[in-house]
């Protein structure tokens, strides 16, 4: 622990801390451009020069390049250092254009701040300014190279940190240019971070272009709900519209960064560019009414139905984008009023997988994304990180940069921004592959040291997974796994079998008992699926059962709280028919979903930006999102009226839990437990440990010290004989285009990947199909027409169908389907 003195203040810092960071701990902000904690020091900008008065280094040195050492005496205010920094600013400013007024960075520009603080105000350089031509970099990022100060942050972030190779430095000397080989959209789905990382306005945010200045924004800490990871964000609102979303530093979750889906997929909350897409007003039977009327209508209808048919004729639906508050309220109401539900997942199988995953996490084994970065062996089983949880891919990349071996066991044609070994196993084989990999890594001595349960489990693991199937030597990987110290298993809950999450947990447990610091991370299907799994009992009814009860006529009313079965349920025709039999369909939502359109009573709810809400991420971390603004139809884009009103147009929305509470006519729900925090604590015992009195809870983890039930002997199923000439159709998520808030965000429309059905190239060849063909896939209720994309890097015998916009996949009987070869036809 070196001790050093900076500006007469003494500090002790951990070994390896840079002087610039040591100063920051003391509250001394040494100016910097190229240095960034996540990217490290490269000493390019020379802005962080300070004077070393005593110690191993003397004179002007870059504080970002030097590790703190004992006996250093450093002055940041020494005249020589100040003069030098001022000169650096002068050098940087000789070519910087005079365009702050038309630059979106103005007001939040590091260069602007440091130029002002250095006192450089007058241009002395007699020469002319260098100029550059800009490039088109896609719909998210605007490029203005004239402003560049060549700190290399963008290329270091883009190439080294995020692992994409289409943006970098060109030319030499003072003609240095940061751009692409040719104009075009940036390939990285993490490109938005360039905006944050650039110290000046070279890369600016196009959705927020020319709209607002930083000082006019209402900013609040928020949480991203586009996928389960719960990345921390800052919501920025102005004129009743969310203008942009920035990454908020959280060392355990997302670090400094954010994926493009989370960053640019916010426009659903504004109702799109014309603000018309979001349902702003309450409706009864499609006609606009006041909130009070809608509340009264739904409330009276519900009690009517309850009186006539009994409370069990009412069913409540929740979803994976409900806040924890809404979920707790739903669960409480269902219990007290005797309603059916709440049903969180449309697919019961997914629910069971999530539940078994959540049950198996404990604080010893659950790792955060930060801890994944320090893993030295990562097994990704049944998860397509880039499409399902983009920031997790970035975390794994950091591990990969530290030379960790990455193994992906998944049938999909996975692409990730780092090197990995891909075992294209079909879902049924993922367990075998994972099991044999883990089993192979347990040495004989280690096996002896295990207790009986673990030993039994280990023995029951499948011994072999043929190299033939994967083309990769599992024993070789197992040897590497054996040598690792901190392996992490990342397990998906999408396409895998129902027993896989538990098996992954057992494997991680086994690795831990064999003396490794093993970790486990689940990729869950939605922002709040963790808490919904905690809230629902083991005997919860599935949506399909509910649907048949509706068909039978025993259910008369349905309350859909931010839930849209039309998005998730595969058989649209059946759903259509069933829901039209209902007496009452109450929809509470902020998205213009199909359910909202068909609701007999609609009540607008608040988005995450418009209320205080809580979400639990897949490692059990409770995160609180604060309200950013009050909401309402944005003023943005049209001339504001001159009239004086005492209400906000579109300001009728309220948090879904509040609406539920009001329509339940159950005033005692809140009164009896007094506060929202106590409601949550009462519904979720796991919450108790975090201290219910301190609601809102932020950053506490609600997972037990030790989970129960482990080492269930895996079923050593016999190899399912390949059915002749047929395919297993798998539905998957795709970045930007398939998750719920994103598909309603028109900002993302420009980057939707082309709809495609994926198929192994050999399978395609056997079926006489080739890449780019439009094929028709015959299913029972109807057929799907889609473009075919073939790949060699995926499992054989499966068809991958993203549930994305542009594919009418809801013509299936169930969530998976077996397609005979002859039902795939080229058209």
């Amino acid at each position: 622990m070196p001790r050093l003195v900076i500006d007469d203040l003494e500090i002790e810092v951990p070994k390896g801390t840079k002087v610039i960071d040591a100063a920051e701990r003391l509250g001394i902000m040494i100016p910097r451009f190229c240095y960034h904690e996540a990217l490290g020091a490269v000493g390019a900008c020379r802005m962080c020069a300070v004077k070393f008065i005593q110690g191993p280094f003397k004179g002007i040195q870059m504080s970002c390049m030097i590790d703190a050492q004992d006996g250093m005496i450093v002055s940041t205010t020494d005249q020589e250092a100040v003069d030098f920094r001022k000169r650096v600013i002068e050098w940087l400013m000789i070519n910087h254009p005079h365009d702050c007024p038309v630059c979106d960075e103005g007001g939040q520009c590091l260069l602007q701040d440091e130029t002002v603080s250095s006192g450089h105000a007058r241009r002395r350089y007699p020469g002319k300014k260098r100029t550059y031509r800009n490039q088109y970099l896609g719909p998210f990022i605007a490029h203005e190279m004239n402003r560049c100060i060549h700190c290399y942050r963008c290329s270091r972030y883009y190439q080294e940190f995020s692992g994409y190779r289409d943006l970098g430095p060109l030319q030499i000397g003072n003609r240095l240019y940061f751009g692409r080989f040719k104009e075009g959209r940036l390939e990285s789905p993490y490109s938005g971070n360039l905006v944050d990382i650039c110290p000046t306005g070279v890369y600016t945010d196009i959705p927020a272009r020319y709209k607002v200045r930083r000082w006019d924004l209402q900013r609040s800490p928020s949480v991203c709900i586009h996928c389960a990871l719960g990345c921390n964000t800052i919501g920025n609102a102005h004129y009743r519209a969310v203008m942009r979303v920035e990454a908020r530093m959280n060392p355990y979750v997302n670090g400094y960064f954010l994926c493009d889906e989370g960053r640019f997929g916010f426009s659903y909350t504004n109702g799109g560019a014309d603000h018309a897409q979001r349902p702003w007003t309450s409706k009864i039977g499609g006609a606009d009414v006041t909130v009070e009327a809608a509340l009264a209508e739904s409330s009276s209808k519900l009690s009517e139905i309850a009186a006539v048919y009994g409370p069990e004729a009412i069913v409540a639906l929740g979803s994976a984008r409900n806040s924890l508050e809404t979920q707790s309220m739903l669960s409480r109401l269902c219990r007290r009023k005797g309603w059916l539900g709440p049903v969180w997942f449309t697919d019961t199988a997914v629910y069971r997988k999530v539940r078994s995953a959540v049950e198996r996490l404990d604080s010893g084994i659950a790792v955060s994304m930060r801890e994944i970065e320090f893993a030295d062996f990562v097994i990704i089983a049944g998860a397509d990180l880039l499409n399902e949880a983009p920031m997790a891919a970035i975390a794994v990349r950091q591990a990969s940069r530290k030379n960790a071996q990455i193994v992906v066991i998944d049938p999909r044609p996975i692409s990730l921004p780092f090197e990995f070994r891909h075992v294209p196993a079909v879902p049924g084989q993922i367990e075998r592959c994972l099991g044999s990999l883990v089993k192979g890594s347990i040495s004989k001595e280690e096996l002896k040291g295990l207790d009986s349960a673990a030993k039994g489990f280990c023995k029951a693991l499948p011994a072999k997974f043929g190299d033939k199937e994967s083309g990769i030597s599992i024993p070789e990987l197992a040897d590497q796994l054996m040598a690792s110290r901190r392996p992490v298993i990342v397990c998906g809950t999408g396409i895998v079998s129902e027993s896989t999450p538990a098996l992954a947990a057992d494997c991680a447990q086994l690795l831990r008992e064999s003396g490794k610091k093993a970790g486990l991370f689940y990729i869950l299907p939605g922002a709040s699926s963790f808490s919904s799994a905690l809230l629902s009992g083991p005997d919860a009814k599935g949506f399909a059962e509910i649907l048949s009860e509706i068909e039978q006529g025993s259910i008369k009313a349905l309350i859909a709280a931010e839930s849209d079965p039309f998005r998730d349920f595969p058989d649209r025709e059946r759903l259509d028919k069933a829901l039209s039999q209902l007496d009452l369909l109450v929809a509470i939502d902020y998205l213009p979903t199909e359910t909202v359109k068909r609701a007999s009573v609609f009540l607008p709810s608040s988005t995450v930006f418009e209320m205080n809400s809580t979400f639990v991420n897949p490692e059990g971390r409770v995160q609180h999102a604060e309200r950013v603004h009050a909401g309402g139809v944005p003023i943005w884009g049209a001339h504001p009226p001159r009239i004086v009103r005492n209400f906000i147009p579109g300001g009728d929305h309220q948090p879904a839990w509040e609406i539920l509470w009001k329509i339940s006519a159950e005033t005692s729900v809140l009164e009896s437990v007094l506060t929202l925090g106590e409601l949550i604590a009462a519904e979720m015992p796991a919450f108790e440990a975090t201290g219910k009195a301190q609601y809102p809870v932020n950053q506490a983890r609600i997972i037990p010290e030790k989970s129960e039930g482990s080492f269930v002997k895996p079923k050593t199923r016999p190899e399912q004989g390949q059915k002749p000439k047929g395919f297993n159709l798998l539905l998957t998520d795709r970045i930007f285009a398939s998750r719920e808030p994103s598909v309603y965000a028109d900002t993302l429309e420009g980057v939707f990947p082309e709809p495609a059905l994926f198929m192994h190239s050999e399978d395609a060849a056997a079926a006489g199909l080739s890449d780019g063909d439009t094929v028709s896939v015959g299913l029972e209720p109807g057929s799907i027409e889609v473009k075919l994309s073939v790949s060699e890097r995926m499992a054989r015998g499966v068809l991958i169908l993203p549930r994305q916009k542009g594919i009418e996949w809801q013509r299936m009987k169930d969530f998976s389907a077996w397609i005979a070869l002859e039902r795939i036809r080229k058209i």
Partner: protein
Amino acid sequence: MAQPLVLFKNRHPNRAATLDEYKQSGGYEALQKFVGGKVDPGEVIRLVDESGLRGRGGAGFPAGKKWEAVPKDAPFPRYLVANADEMEPGTFKDRILLHTDPHCIIEGMILAAYAFSATKGFFFVRPSYDSSAVIMERELEVARGAGFLGKNILGSGYSFDIVVHRSGGRYICGEATALLNAIMGKRPNPIKPPPYPTEKGLWDRPTVVNNVETLACVPHILRNGPQWFKDLAITPKGAGTKLFCVSGKVNSPGAEELPMGTPLREIIEKHFGGMIPGSEFKACLPGGASTRFLTRDHYDVPMDFEDLKAIGNRLGTAAIMIFDQKTCMVATAHNLMRFFARESCGWCTPCREGLPYMRELLWLIENGEGKEEYIDTLRSMCKQVWNSYCALAPGAAEPVISLLDFFEDEVREHIRLKGCPFHAKAGN
């Protein structure tokens, strides 16, 4: 005193010495003795260390020390890089050496590699020396044929091979760490140690980068002993001979091998035919473009690392560029600054933005648009570019520093006259 010829003893006009010629002059004896005789590599390092051989590429770092810095337990493969990417204006000694005695370099490389058990050698050569690269490739094949190179050299069990790596041509590639990046196919930006290339160089393996001339000295040291090498120099602290490249206003510009410490006057007047008729010595750069001017006052200074250091200068590459009284020093400084500004890799601010700034000021002064305050700006900037990432910018500042030290009157004259008193346009 007779001129001791070590590196140039096989000098033939217009052709390079062949393997046989080299062998006749005692070539490959050291290789036979040390590699063939499986002498402990530590012995090689000790001898070279003792001889006082210092890097001939400009920095003057003791060669033996560099080899010693490779950790004994470092992983294999290890690499040796011969740096023939001389791009310093005024320097051409490596080209002359290559065209004179390529085997001397090859043997030097093998011995150096042997000293720290390198497994592969890179001969890094710049594009305008393509003829040298061709010669080198040809002679490497010859050496391989003779069993001096390749697997199991001379039956010693030690294997080493050399490949010629052609550069795309940039001054910064001559910097050791940038050179390594260039070989690896990355952008040739310098990297500030630690880690030192001797620990983590090419592909994170130990790598030693030596100048071609340094390597060429090694066989001779090992053959004749360190003391012999030391005695070659005139000055007590110097060691060996040095290839002096003299260009500019002398009668016979070129490269000659002279003992370390030969005085400047003797070099110019005796060995390079004196100043051309009608010219008087005004100033010279003693070691390439990134050194300070020597004026008439320094005419008798011995050309050695230490002696030049004593007067605040550097021997650099010992490329002496001689300017006569008709040369405008401001224009010269501008030309040099233009060179450096152009060749900056663009990594750090002082070099990327500071050098063009200084070039602009010098250009304005030369063209009669100068102002008095530019002199102060130049002075302070010369000091400030020292805080740059690598040594390019400090090197670039050297001529300007000495311009302002020794020729301030001339600069002020430019400003006063609003134009160049020499009427020589610098060109842009």
